Structures are given as structure tokens and as C-alpha cells.
């Protein structure tokens, strides 16, 4: 499949291209992406921290494809690292072999933002949030699971929404339900796209 790159290639696209052979990304989501090139400009990241790309991580790994981490390739490991499916410690050569010490240090620095992110990579900045609820209402998972509540503009009537507004600001409750994560991930940017103050961002773009 040919993917047309926008003038400023974004990490999301890199992520998709790189991940394509590794993970079954739904056909629908890719063609959706190609049909709407304007949606690709999503990770301009307006002055926020740059997202971490698998390529950046890969460059610092041993690149030996030794499989000790349980992955077939270092690239695959890099990808899963960013998605929280693997921990840096799983790459044992990095820690055991002296020659990687410098790279290890750099990697640890690079991956620092992972700490402040939620388990699956979504970061919210409460200071920027006014609790408008756009993200809560727009989320397709919310609309499907709670059509009378969040899908219709109200607060959640289910116990475990992905996001909800608490004390006037957005809070992440059940990130595992987000469509960007898990085996059948699709490229969803609805919550971030509809936050006027950039209070939501994704770790990897």
C-alpha cells in the first residue's frame, strides 16, 4: 500500500509504517488515514515535548536481534517499549554489557516521559484543561458504551470510562479501553484533536 506523506512527516506515520509488518493494523484504519491526509498533521505538537519514536529508541538499542527480550528484533522491542508492552530491563544485554553503558544512559533519559504518562501512553496536563468535556463526549468508545450518557453530551453513566471530568479537569480512568492500544489498535486521535488547549497528548505522537 502506498502511503502519501504530508509535507512534514510525522511520527504517527513512521509508527504505522514501521509497525505494519509487525502488527496487524486494521485495513480500515490505514485506508482511513490515506483518504484523509489532513488528519496526518496531528502531531505538530504545538510547542509540546516531541513524542518518542520507535526509530529513536531503536538507534540506541544493541541492534543485534539477539531475541533475549523475547522479541524477534530490536525494532519490535523498541516499538513495544514505547507501548508499555515491554520494559527496558527486558533487554538484558544493555545492562550486562559495559559497552552499552552510554546508550543505556541515553535511553533512560529518552524514556523518562514514559514515567509521567498513563499506562498506555496518554498524558494529560490538568493545568491546561478547563473541563469542557469535548474529549469525553467525542470518544468513540464512550459513545458506543454509554450512548445515553457521554455519547449524548452528559457525564458518564458507566463506572469505567476512559476519561471523565473530576473537580473540573480531565482524569484518566480506564485507559485500557482506548482504541489506540491493545492488539487491534486503530489510529484514533479524537480526544486530542478536539481539545482546544492541547491538554491531551500521546506519548508516541
Amino acid at each position, binding site marked *: 500500500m502506498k502511503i502519501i506523506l504530508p509535507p512534514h512527516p510525522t511520527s504517527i506515520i513512521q509508527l504505522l509504517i514501521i509497525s505494519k509488518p509487525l502488527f496487524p493494523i486494521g485495513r480500515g484504519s490505514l485506508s482511513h488515514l490515506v483518504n*484523509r491526509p*489532513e*488528519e496526518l498533521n496531528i502531531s505538530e505538537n504545538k510547542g509540546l515535548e516531541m513524542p518518542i519514536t520507535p526509530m529513536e529508541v531503536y538507534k540506541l538499542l544493541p541492534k543485534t536481534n539477539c531475541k533475549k527480550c523475547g522479541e524477534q528484533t530490536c525494532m519490535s522491542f523498541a516499538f513495544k517499549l514505547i507501548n508499555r508492552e515491554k520494559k527496558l530491563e527486558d533487554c538484558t544485554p544493555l545492562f550486562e554489557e559495559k559497552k552499552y553503558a552510554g546508550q543505556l544512559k541515553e535511553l533512560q533519559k529518552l524514556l523518562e516521559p514514559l514515567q509521567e504518562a498513563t499506562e498506555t501512553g496518554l498524558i494529560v496536563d490538568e493545568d491546561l*484543561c*478547563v*473541563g*469542557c*468535556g*469535548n474529549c*469525553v*463526549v*467525542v470518544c*468513540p468508545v464512550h*459513545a458506543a458504551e454509554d*450512548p445515553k450518557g457521554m*455519547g*449524548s*453530551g*452528559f*457525564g*458518564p453513566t458507566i463506572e469505567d470510562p476512559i476519561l*471523565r*471530568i*473530576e*473537580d*473540573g*479537569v480531565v482524569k484518566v480512568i480506564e485507559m485500557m479501553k482506548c482504541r489506540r492500544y491493545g492488539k487491534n489498535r486503530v489510529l484514533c486521535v479524537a480526544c486530542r*484533536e*478536539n481539545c*482546544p*488547549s492541547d491538554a491531551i497528548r500521546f506519548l508516541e505522537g
Partner: protein
Amino acid sequence: MPDGMSTCTGCSCLCPDIVIKDSKIFNACRKGSSIFKHQDERIEPSIEGKKVKFEEALNKAIDIISSSEKLAIFGLDTIPLEAQEVAIELAKKRKAYIDDNSAFCLGDFIELILKGDLPTTTLDDVKSNAYVIFYWGTDPYNSLSRHLSMYTYYPRAGKRQRGYEEDRYLVVADVRESHTAKLVKKNAKFIKVESDEALVEGFLSSMEGKAGKYYEETGRILKEMQRGKFNVIFGGLGLKYGLNGKYGRFIEMIKKMNELAEVYFIPAGFHANMRGFNELMFEKTGSINRYSFETESSAPEYEFSELVKNDSIDTALIVGSDPANSLPFDVVKKLKEINIVLIDPKPSLTSKIAEVVIPSAITGIDQGGTMVRSDGVRIKIEPLLEGEYTDESILQKILEGVS
């Protein structure tokens, strides 16, 4: 605060789905949740800054109001209809002036709607039917934070089940790229307006088949309106000041648009029950604000700030408002010279300069009542707990007490 459900009176959206559980506030926006969060920061009854018993403050207020020669009642936009009604009675009894914030807010639009000059609809109908959602001279993200998510662009309801990307068309017209304008992506249009009058003319020429200013934008929007059948324009302060009191062409524009498709107008939003006050006044006097029960007429010089500026009053009864914070500095200086009786639940700049302070309640927390949403729908609000005093009961006692 007890657990429960309530309606937020932080603005005229009157969001009905606020949940309070274990002192946490759910679903309200930042502005709304702070009302609930800080609800226990209350003011004490006082006379000339000294704490007194509630009854003493009340009696002193009755004395001051009874002996006033030129009284104005002001504020009233955050209290329920039932209390506003008593305030209007009191103004009538004392042949006083009465005014709220609407004269420098969106009162003009409310008046045009009440007089039938602009076709209007409800937010519930917008939610179920509206296709083009047009914000003109307003940034709801910052002032009416849940407007788009609760009522207009984002909810799926009625005929608009497919979500904003397919079932809504967003238009934002503003002098700058506001937060709300950032939401304009695909299937949407942002118009950077230099002159609101020119944009009105642009729409009119477009409908006459002429290429005027903003030709491309207006043409596209009109096409979308035809496609959507049911459309709505929300006008804010930017539009009001942009039109500068000349509403004729705007009214004509909406009329012409309605030959193409249904196009309704709703004022964007304001204080929780400003529209309620305007509607009550309109019902009782034919005017919406700046009214004198002495001359039985409304006039620009009866606007509260004008009355203060021109030394037209000796006493002000201020209810649920903080003019010492909102009025210009030189007017506040004059305000300090007159007698002020304040009825309000919270400490404010005005409470610092008031002769008498009478603590009241917060609607939705410790008093109930009816409020009028920005679209004119009356919302019955149940309190979370029973307060000792309400705006209505305080005003009723003053009404009975004054001679």
C-alpha cells in the same frame, strides 16, 4: 457537602448532570466545579464591617432601604426567578430603579428574541437537529465551557447520531483565532472577521447572488445551511459590539437565510439566570432592564453604572453580584459614597464596601428555584441541602419590612 446530583449555576448552560460524591465534583467544568468545591467559603452578616446577628443585618437593611430617597436594585442575574420576582416587587413598592448586567452583556439579543425579531429554538432541538452550528463573536470554550459538548457540536442525539464529523458543520466567526476556533478542522469553517457588519453584508450579497466580502466563506456556509435544513447561530459579545446597536441588517440577514433553510438564533450565554430577569421584566414592564418604577420607563441613563456615575441614587441594594469588581474604577469610587446593602453568599470586593451584608444561599447547593437557560427553557433546580436563608426569603422579609 452531601453526596447527590445537582444542576450547575456557573453559567447559563445550567448543566443538569453534576454528581457530588465523597466531596468530589464530577462532570462540571472548571468554573462550575469551583462553585461546588468552595461552597463553604461563606460570608457573615455584618454592619459597617462588624459581624452581627443575621436579624440585626436584616433590620438594618430594612431601615436603610426605607429611608432611602433614591434606591436602585442591581445584580439579580444569579438568583432564581422566584427571588427576582420579589426584587421587582420591592422596586415597584419603593419606586426604585432596577437593573442587571444585561445592558452591557447580551440583553439586546434577548430583547430582539422576546420581541419576535429573531427566530429562536431550544438547545435540546439544536442537540437533536442542528447541522450548521455557528458561533459568532463568542469563545464558548472559555466562558461556557460545556456548550459544545453538552448541547451543540459533539453530542449525538435525535437526527444527529453520526457524530460531529458527519452530522455537524462548525462555523466560528471571530476577530482572532480563539480556543473554540481551533476546533475548526474538517467540515468546518473559521472566518477571521475584521468587521461584523461587513460579514452581515457579505451574507446578504451572497444570497442576492452577488460576490461581496467574505464571498467564499458565506457561499459555502449558505450551501451547508441548505443541506442541513436546521441550523443555529449563537451570538456573543463580539457580535453585539461589532454591530454597534444596528441590528436591522442582521435581522434581515437571518430572515433571508430562512428563505433557504431554517436558521435560528440563540444568544451564546451569560450569568446563570440573566435571561430569567430579562424575561420577567419584559413580562411586567415591556422592557428588559434599566428600568425606573418612578417614571415607569426604561432608559440608558437608568443603567446601574450610569446611576452611580451621575449621583442619581443614594442607596443600592445589590443581590448576587460584585459590581465593585466589574465596574470601572471611577464608578467604583462613587459607589463607595452611597449606601450599599448586599445580599450574597460569598465574600467579594463589594462585600468589603457594603454598609450591610446579608448572607444568602447558592442555587443548586443550599437553595432551589427556577432559572432560565440561555435558550429560554425554564429549569427547575433542586438544592443539595436545605439552607437556612434563601434569596427569596430574605427579599420577601425586606419587602414586608420596608415602608
